[in-house]
């Protein structure tokens, strides 16, 4: 494929140039037939079937939402944020993580990681789009949001900053990806750096959404805004393993093997820091028996979802990384799959645990039973839209692998 390298100069920008610029983006012309022409192995067929099933569930879930509104969800006055918020966070964390991994090569210039830059940046675009697709059906009035976010901005709101910065971030990621496709590395670096900074700001603001909740002592404070960045990097590396594992069918070339074992070593450090963070978060939450906070922390320690998060996202991946000193990349591919399931539970726990403790306004009669813990289990519509989000993400990624050359050009 011939690729045009054209310097981008905003001063000389004209409509004709823009058209020419867009027309010169290298892509493969594909048909539906091309999309269906994948290697018909059992695994591939199962994955393809699952994606179609998830997309179908998304349509059903959205129809249920359109027919019944928020009544289709199990969110309540006491637990206003449910599974869809957790899934949105899951996707945007994945996006930020992939942006960090992608930036290692094309922004920071670590040559070993150039191999994955284009693929990771494309991954960051599809994951955030899946996140937006899910949140669009959680926000009660998404069109009103687009209008009043602009004409009546709430600058003291972490949600405003998070949403606005993520919108900008998506724009920069798309521009960076286009420059990567065009092999204009200088422009890709510039937009990549801006995109990375905006993405990190957006992501820490998402942590701030929880950190600013004075009413919820378990979440309030500096922990989440920083923890979100750390867990984003971890998530990005898990997904990097998964993407490369599928791309090379676990038969990694020497360069890919080197890159993945380097990423595994970074991952080992990051997961260790995460374990350190979570341990101290729990200790400080419990210490002193502070009302509302310590009892919530003890309750979290007794919940199975917390231990799923710990075992799948922390213990298994760290054990396998340490055992092979990051060399056994095939096992680490499976550890990354386990890690992503753990990361999902991490997001779910974050949202649910924040709302565990009733606000204790003495509403003990009629309104609710004597409050112990707020219970929540997602409804069928919430589960279908969430799985649909995953279906959208995987489908977009698959189309991307056909439409664009996601391998590094030097490598290819």
């Amino acid at each position: 494929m011939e690729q045009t390298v054209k310097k981008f100069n905003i001063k000389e920008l004209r409509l004709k140039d823009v058209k020419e610029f867009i027309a010169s983006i290298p892509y493969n012309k594909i048909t539906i037939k091309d999309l269906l022409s994948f290697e018909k192995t059992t695994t591939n067929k199962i994955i393809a079937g699952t994606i179609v099933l998830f997309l179908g569930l998304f349509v059903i879930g959205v129809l249920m939402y359109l027919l019944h509104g928020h009544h289709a969800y199990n969110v309540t006055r006491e637990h206003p944020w449910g599974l869809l918020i957790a899934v949105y966070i899951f996707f945007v964390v994945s996006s930020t993580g992939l942006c960090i991994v992608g930036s290692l090569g094309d922004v920071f210039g670590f040559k070993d990681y150039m191999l994955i830059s284009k693929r990771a940046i494309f991954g960051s675009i599809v994951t955030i789009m899946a996140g937006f697709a899910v949140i669009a059906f959680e926000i009660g009035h998404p069109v009103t949001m687009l209008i009043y976010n602009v004409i009546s901005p709430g600058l003291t709101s972490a949600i405003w900053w998070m949403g606005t910065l993520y919108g900008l971030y998506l724009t920069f990621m798309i521009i960076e990806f286009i420059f990567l496709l065009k092999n204009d590395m200088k422009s890709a670096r510039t937009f990549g750096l801006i995109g990375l900074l905006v993405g990190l700001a957006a992501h820490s603001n998402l942590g701030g959404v929880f950190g600013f909740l004075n009413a919820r002592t378990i979440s309030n404070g500096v922990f989440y805004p920083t923890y979100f960045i750390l867990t984003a990097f971890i998530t990005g590396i898990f997904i990097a393993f998964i993407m490369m594992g599928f791309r090379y069918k676990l038969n990694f070339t020497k360069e890919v093997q080197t890159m993945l074992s380097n990423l595994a070593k970074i991952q080992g450090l990051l997961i260790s820091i995460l374990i350190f963070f979570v341990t101290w978060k729990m200790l400080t939450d419990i210490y002193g028996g502070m009302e509302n906070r310590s009892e919530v922390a003890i309750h979290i320690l007794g919940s199975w979802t917390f231990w799923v998060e710990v075992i799948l996202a922390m213990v298994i991946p760290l054990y396998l990384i340490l055992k092979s000193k990051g060399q056994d990349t095939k096992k680490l591919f499976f550890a990354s799959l386990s890690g992503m399931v753990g990361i999902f539970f991490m997001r779910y726990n974050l949202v649910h645990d924040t709302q565990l403790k009733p606000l204790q306004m003495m509403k003990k009669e009629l309104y609710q039973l004597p409050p112990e813990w707020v219970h929540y289990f997602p409804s069928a519509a919430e589960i279908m839209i969430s799985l649909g989000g995953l279906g959208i993400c995987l489908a977009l990624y698959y189309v991307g692998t056909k439409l664009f050359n996601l391998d590094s050009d030097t490598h290819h």
Partner: protein
Amino acid sequence: MATYGMALDYKNCINCKACEVACKEENGIELGAEKHRIWVGGNEPDGIWPLLNAASAAFMPSQCQHCEEAPCEEVCPTHATYYDDNGVVRVDPDKCILCSYCMNACPYDARFVDSRTMTVDKCNFCSNTRLARGETTTACQNTCPTKVRIFGDLDDPNSEISVLLRTREHFTLKTHLGTKPKLFYVM
């Protein structure tokens, strides 16, 4: 222009819940236990029969505290929650996107979703109804048989509420959060 607040002589409350009914009737609040702007909370008495602590079983009417530093207003991404000229914390349903951030941020569980408009609703001291008609009392205050609620202008030194707060000891809820509530419980 005023600064509206409410004092609650809560030990007079007999839990008749007339205030809840009057609020729903006056402001057209949806039926159902979850849809309430105001409520009467109650504690189970401490102790074991017959040694019950009667003082611990007081009823505690409550609602939006109309905080001076309202967390719900700070977190709203579209200024749908705002302070009106009288210091009342209100919701503009046209701007509400139902992100539910305010419901999570409010320490007083004072907000709920109105499923007719699919926007967040809360007490507004009857600003759209009674105050708009020129009345000077809220529905909950007007109906209370034991005169628990005293609504009025905190800026006016001669208002009933100002006199009451000058002469009786009082406290606010979750004061440590720095929200500066304008709902005062007189002791």
